[in-house]
């Protein structure tokens, strides 16, 4: 038993670091490190830079144009990327639909879609949840009926992340309503430019637009855009959800945000002394740092047990629950660190380059303006990707066997 990575893995880490030093645009990393929103262009540019290095299909095998990394290498890459302030990879293309296309798509689909996912030329989004089908995804109602060589799709998807940027959407649709729920679902790839698709923004509690409702009205989808067999979509969906859970703990991002929290606590003053010297606040930081350390080791144990390339099993639920709790706690402490200056909320201050009226001082320190909004926004973490309650069901059923 040893804690250190192998020499090869450490050399790989150095390789990732030097790439990030050379290629990550400072204009982007400054936004990430300060918690500002990224534009579509920022994400696309970063995906293109990764692609140019041969890392566009991060978790992909070599035969599909990926670098062929194992799960430990992917972990190292994501950790170093987060610490350097690289954008979080938008998972819908590279990590979600691509593995499905590789495993269950035909050669034509693989050739058509994978290269443009890797290069960032095509942005993907997810059509899973519906107003009546959230935790109970298999109860979805969006219908696809066969009409010659097309499916005609009608229905509504919701909680669609960044669909306003997307070129393509992968969807679960019901093709057989007579079969038992899981057996009548088909997996379709749909061009977002298709007539009959309407994307409506959902404004979240922080004022941001990151999720949408998507309406399908007689949308015609060529049968050639079906993945695998009709009515076998649930199998592919479960496979996809397994891949969604790689790097689910978000260790790198949590480490970065913890550093930022400490920087804020060093800068803030309480009774004339740095806040980080306040025993109670210091204990809060220490507690979350220790929790994160424990989760990191748990995560490494999971990785070590599966040094191959297979998707993580139900233990990913442990990582999801603790990872989201830790991220939420860090954002909460950062908000509390600035005292009364957590209250002012200027939506425009979440955009990089915003300046307060220079004739006046900004209300509080520059970094304070987005901390409460971030705290509010991070409440989503324990809801999306399978609520933490559903994750606990998975643990008690799949790991414990209750």
């Amino acid at each position, binding site marked *: 038993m040893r804690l250190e990575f192998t020499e090869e893995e450490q050399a790989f880490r150095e390789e990732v670091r030097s790439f990030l030093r050379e290629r990550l645009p400072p204009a982007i990393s400054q936004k990430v490190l300060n918690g500002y929103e990224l534009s579509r262009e920022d994400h696309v540019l970063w995906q293109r830079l990764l692609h140019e290095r041969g890392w566009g299909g991060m978790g992909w095998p070599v035969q599909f144009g990926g670098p062929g990394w194992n799960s430990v290498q992917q972990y190292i890459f994501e950790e170093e990327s987060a610490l350097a302030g690289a954008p979080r990879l938008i998972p819908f293309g590279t990590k979600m639909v691509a593995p499905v296309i590789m495993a269950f798509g035909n050669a034509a689909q693989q050739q058509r879609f994978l290269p443009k996912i890797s290069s960032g030329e095509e942005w993907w989004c997810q059509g899973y949840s519906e107003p009546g089908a959230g935790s109970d995804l298999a109860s979805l109602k969006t219908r696809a009926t066969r009409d010659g060589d097309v499916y005609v799709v009608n229905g509504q998807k919701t909680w669609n992340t960044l669909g306003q940027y997307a070129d393509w959407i992968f969807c679960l649709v019901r093709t057989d309503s007579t079969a038992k729920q899981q057996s009548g679902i088909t997996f379709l790839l749909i061009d977002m430019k298709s007539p009959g698709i309407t994307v409506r923004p959902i404004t979240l509690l922080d004022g941001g637009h990151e999720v949408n409702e998507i309406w399908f009205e007689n949308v015609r989808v060529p049968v050639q855009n079906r993945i695998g067999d009709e009515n076998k979509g649930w199998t592919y969906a479960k496979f996809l959800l397994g891949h969604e859970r790689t790097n689910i703990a978000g260790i790198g991002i949590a480490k970065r945000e913890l550093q930022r929290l400490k920087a804020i606590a060093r800068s803030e003053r309480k009774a004339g002394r740095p806040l980080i010297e306040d025993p109670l606040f210091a204990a809060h930081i220490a507690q979350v740092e220790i929790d994160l350390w424990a989760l990191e080791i748990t995560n490494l144990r999971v990785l070590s047990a599966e040094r191959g390339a297979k998707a993580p099993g139900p233990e990913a639920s442990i990582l999801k629950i603790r990872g989201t709790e830790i991220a939420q706690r860090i954002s909460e402490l950062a908000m509390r660190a600035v005292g009364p200056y957590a209250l002012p909320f*200027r939506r425009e201050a979440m955009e990089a380059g915003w300046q*307060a009226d220079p004739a006046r001082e900004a209300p509080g320190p520059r970094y304070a303006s987005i901390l409460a909004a971030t705290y509010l926004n991070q409440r989503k973490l324990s809801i999306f990707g399978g609520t933490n309650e559903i994750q606990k069901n998975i643990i008690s059923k799949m790991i414990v066997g209750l």
Partner: protein
Amino acid sequence: MNFEFSDEQQQLHDSVDRYLSEQYSFDRFRTIAATAAGWDRAAWSGLAELGILGINVPTEYGGLGFGPLETLAMMGACGRSLVLEPVMSSAVIATAVLSALASSQAAADLLGQLAGGEKIAVLAHFESGSRFDAQWVTARARRSGGGYVLDGHKAVVMHANAADVLLVSARIAGEPHESAGISLFAVPRDTPGLLLDVYPTIDDQRAADVYLKGVELPAAGRLSAEGAAFAAIEAALDIGLAALCAEAVGIMQALLDATVQYVQSRQQFGQPIGRFQALQHRIADMLIHVEQARSMSYLAALRCREENVVERRKALSAAKVVVGQSARYVGQQAVQLHGGMGMTDELIVSHWFKRLTAAELMFGDSDAHLQRYAALTR
């Protein structure tokens, strides 16, 4: 021992509750929140007609001469309706500080105008370096000619944009952390050298950072005895803290009710999600938090005028710890149990959650009061 409202208090509670249910809908809140001013003069007049603006003003100045229990009786409904008008800032805190200083003619006159809602005043006291330590005042007042000149910066002054008059604390003598040497001044909104940087807060209220640059005031602008305003300011802040606890409890109850309703109606896996025991237990925990917070909001109301300052501070800090922690738990879990819907701007749930989050941070968060309580009781 008796925890019932008197008939009169119950009547007040019911009338405010009914009025706001009818007149201050979520739609109205959204409409007002979206305006530049962030508050509505017609709504303010309505509250004045209802009589609640004079609750804390003594009868000799034209008010109703009520106190913290009547404030408790009305604040829950104000919270539930997310009232954006400066009820807390002007009708509770400003009236409290002016009542304590009413031997000054200027304070007495202003008090009369606040009672009927003709004018709005807010206390501009906390500063950027204070982190809600009430004694920390660095704004300076110096005598000049027959009056005063004020310089300084007040942080996150709630509803300052709505105020006709700001009640500004400034130090005439002493060091930043000393309670002696603080005077209180009435600064009309249009006084040259008074600058407001107005912004929305996370819960769609309005606040401002207030800058005083060579603000000249006549001698009558000083409301307190020279250098002796701290006791009145602290007393007013404590009355405000008790009102904030009551407001938060009203919101928590609303969130609990909404969450219960949601889990009973939301169907997943062929049944209402409220049938799942994990969620039933969560609701039970929310209810325990609400009841504990309610108990402490009563304590805060009953003790916020206690003359023994140490006992008063203990009770109010204990109340803020429990109410703050409960606000955090109930707010977070209400969002969680609503799932994605709890994250949306469209539902009132997220707005209640944000108001509770703000309430937890105002007047010192739970940690600050936990530490103060520990220091008072060791």
